[in-house]
């Protein structure tokens, strides 16, 4: 006798005579990590797709119950490992919200600087991986060449290329070394020359457009129903960005910064004059738009980096002092969502008066973004599954925690 409750929506049930059940992953070059997608196909046509996750689950939330707030920062690095700075910020801010702490001016600008550089780095990987999924290997190398420069900057600032442990509760770990700002300036100038190259080889390429336009169209209602956030949501036409619309403790960081929220309004994107136009075949909410939003956001982040550098130079205060390692957390809970490169990352911390939190909860943006995969892949071809996964830009470290 079986005690399992069979979910009638399972892809594996009632497989027809001429249908195949095929596993994409967990070891697969096109799934951005250890993700298994079970496809039910009729030849090349996908009738059902179901993502299976958990291959990278590392019990982060449970670990958080055994470590103090500052000790947990390196674990946040490994969530979205392509944008460690943004993950650090999310956790640091929520603990500061619980503690009622405010960091000095200089630390705020430093945080914005690092987070926006991290956003550029993350979007570069997204563009690279999407090109790679569609068979175009060269943009991967170009994007990673630029990412190497950013990662070298991070290494100079905090000693590590991928897992930074830099933005911490109370400020940042250390101030910038001498000459860092000049190097960053040089990077910004060089990177602006590279963006047209990437557009030529990806955004405006006819084959790329043929592979992504009108593929995986996500309507705004579906996006909101499934909890999609970030570029995925904005590419569907919803004008929502937490850096502008979020909680004050987060939007305070971006006070006085000028940037555009990249969401499509009336057929155009803000600030898109210097970029390739939207092709005829593309539909709002398809993979091409998701890719385009990330490209435009990269340019916005570049502007934010320049502003942050200028404001950092002008500010006088110290760059913050990390709280004690054994800082006690007051009783109560705090939840905060921040605009990470891949979407809205939420962190919750429940304190119980000791240094170690009672409960840590991480709301992962990629988890919700991935959940819409089964809706998007249905009715497409097998080759479109990788294009859609690439455009959703998920990272399994975040999905599985």
């Amino acid at each position, binding site marked *: 006798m079986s005690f399992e409750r069979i979910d009638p929506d399972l892809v594996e049930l009632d497989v027809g005579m001429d249908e*195949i059940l*095929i596993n994409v992953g967990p*070891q*697969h*070059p*096109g799934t951005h990590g250890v993700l298994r997608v079970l496809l039910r196909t009729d*030849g*090349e046509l996908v009738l059902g797709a179901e993502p299976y996750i958990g291959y990278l689950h590392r019990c982060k939330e449970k670990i958080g119950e055994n470590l103090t707030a500052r000790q947990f920062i390196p674990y946040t690095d490994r969530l979205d490992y392509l944008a460690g700075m943004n993950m650090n910020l999310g956790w640091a801010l929520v603990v500061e919200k619980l503690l009622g702490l405010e960091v000095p001016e200089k630390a705020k600008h430093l945080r914005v600087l690092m987070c926006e550089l991290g956003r550029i780095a993350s979007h570069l990987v997204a563009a690279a991986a999407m*090109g*790679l*999924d*569609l*068979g*175009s*290997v*060269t943009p*991967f*190398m*170009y994007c990673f*060449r630029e990412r190497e420069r950013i990662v070298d900057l991070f290494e100079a600032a905090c000693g590590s290329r991928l897992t930074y442990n830099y933005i911490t509760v109370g400020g940042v770990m250390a101030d910038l070394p001498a000459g860092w700002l000049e190097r960053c300036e040089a990077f910004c100038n060089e990177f602006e020359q590279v963006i047209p190259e990437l557009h030529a*080889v*990806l955004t405006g*390429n006819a*084959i*790329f457009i*043929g*592979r992504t336009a009108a593929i995986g169209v996500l309507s705004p209602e579906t996006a909101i129903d499934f909890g999609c956030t970030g570029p995925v949501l904005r590419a569907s036409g919803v004008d929502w960005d937490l850096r502008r619309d979020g909680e004050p403790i987060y939007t305070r960081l971006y006070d006085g910064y000028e940037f555009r929220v990249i969401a499509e309004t009336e057929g155009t994107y803000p600030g898109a004059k210097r970029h390739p136009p939207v092709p005829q075949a593309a539909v709002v909410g398809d993979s091409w738009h998701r890719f385009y939003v990330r490209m435009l956001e990269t340019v916005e982040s570049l502007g934010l980096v320049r502003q942050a550098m200028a404001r950092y130079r002008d500010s006088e205060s110290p760059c913050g002092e990390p709280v004690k390692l054994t800082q006690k957390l007051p009783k109560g809970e705090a939840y905060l969502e921040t605009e990470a490169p891949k979407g809205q990352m939420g962190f919750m911390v429940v304190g119980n008066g000791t240094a170690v939190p009672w409960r840590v909860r991480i709301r992962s943006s990629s988890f919700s973004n991935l959940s819409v995969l089964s809706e998007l892949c249905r009715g497409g*071809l*097998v*080759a*479109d599954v*990788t294009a859609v996964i690439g455009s959703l830009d998920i990272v399994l470290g975040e999905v599985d925690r």
Partner: protein
Amino acid sequence: MAEYLTQYADPRLANVIAALVHCGLLLAVAVGAAAFFNWLERKVSARTQDRLGPTRVGGRFGWLQSLADGIKLLAKEDVIPAGADSPLFRLAPYVSFSAAFCAYIALPFADGWVARHLNVAVLFILAVAGLEVFGVILAGYASGSKWSLFGAMREAAQVVSYKIPLALCVVVPVMIAGTMDLVAIGNMQRGWLTNWFLFHDPFTFVTFLVFLTCVVAGVNRSSFDLAEAESELAAGFLSEYSGFRWALFFMAERASMVAVSGLAAILFLGGWNGPLPVATWLHLVPESGLLAGWLGNLLGAGNFLFKCLVGVVFMMWLRWTLPRLRIDQVMTTCLKYCVPLAAAMLLGAMLWTYALPGGLLPGGRPIGEVPEGSAAVAASERGGR
């Protein structure tokens, strides 16, 4: 060579020895080409991607990298999946490689430098190269894996479909030449650059471009490599192959790339004739003597190999620049674009040769003039049919 050896031995033995020598030379060319183009691909892909490529094995340019790769592949463990159909699994790479290699039998490298001088060389090459897809289908089926099956089915659809516009494109230069004999076609393009069939008329020029597309699709290269699409199918029909078996598929692909580049060179780009008739200026022609003729042929073979190189580098360039087409887009390109275009070009070329005999530029050959050695001449000698 067989005729030369009959002076010294029994005719059948002479034929066998000649055949073995030819096979040996061609195998050297095919395998050598595979190794050389492996190195070239790594360098070309590296430079396209703003990096260097092999720089350590065998000097500053990594010349011996291909050799090292070959040794590594030979030394690998031979893994056959438990669910695989063992005899077919083992057979598949050999079918592919044999088919790709057989195309060289009728491919001339210079005037008279061909393993078998066939009157129907073009037909033979197309027919034999089409057998390569059998190896792929066998591999996909026999691997016992759904992903391999996917890749094999895509490949079957793609390669077989593209043979149609390929055949249509090939008919155009054959019609202009009046013969399927590749040696004769090559000889007709002797002289200046303008004698090349590419510049015969605008329709042939467009046909060449369509031919390139069909040929790239037919050898599963660049944007049409969805049968072995790495990021989608984890190497598709090749996923269960490793070591020497994989190396055979790889060599088959490289060999067919060179063979179709050679075919393109002879049919459209003048074959072994350079843009300027240097051999004639230097009197390196058979009329001047045996050695001079041989040197002229050597120069011609060099020309031919250079054109093959250009074709292969072009295919590599495409691969590392462009993304991959989806199977339905590949089939659309074939059936909705390549076939009508090739048919229209065939019609246009036919009308052109009728209306403007001699081609676009002065000094061309008028229609009806059949050169020596062609099938039409042989037929007319036989009885005027």
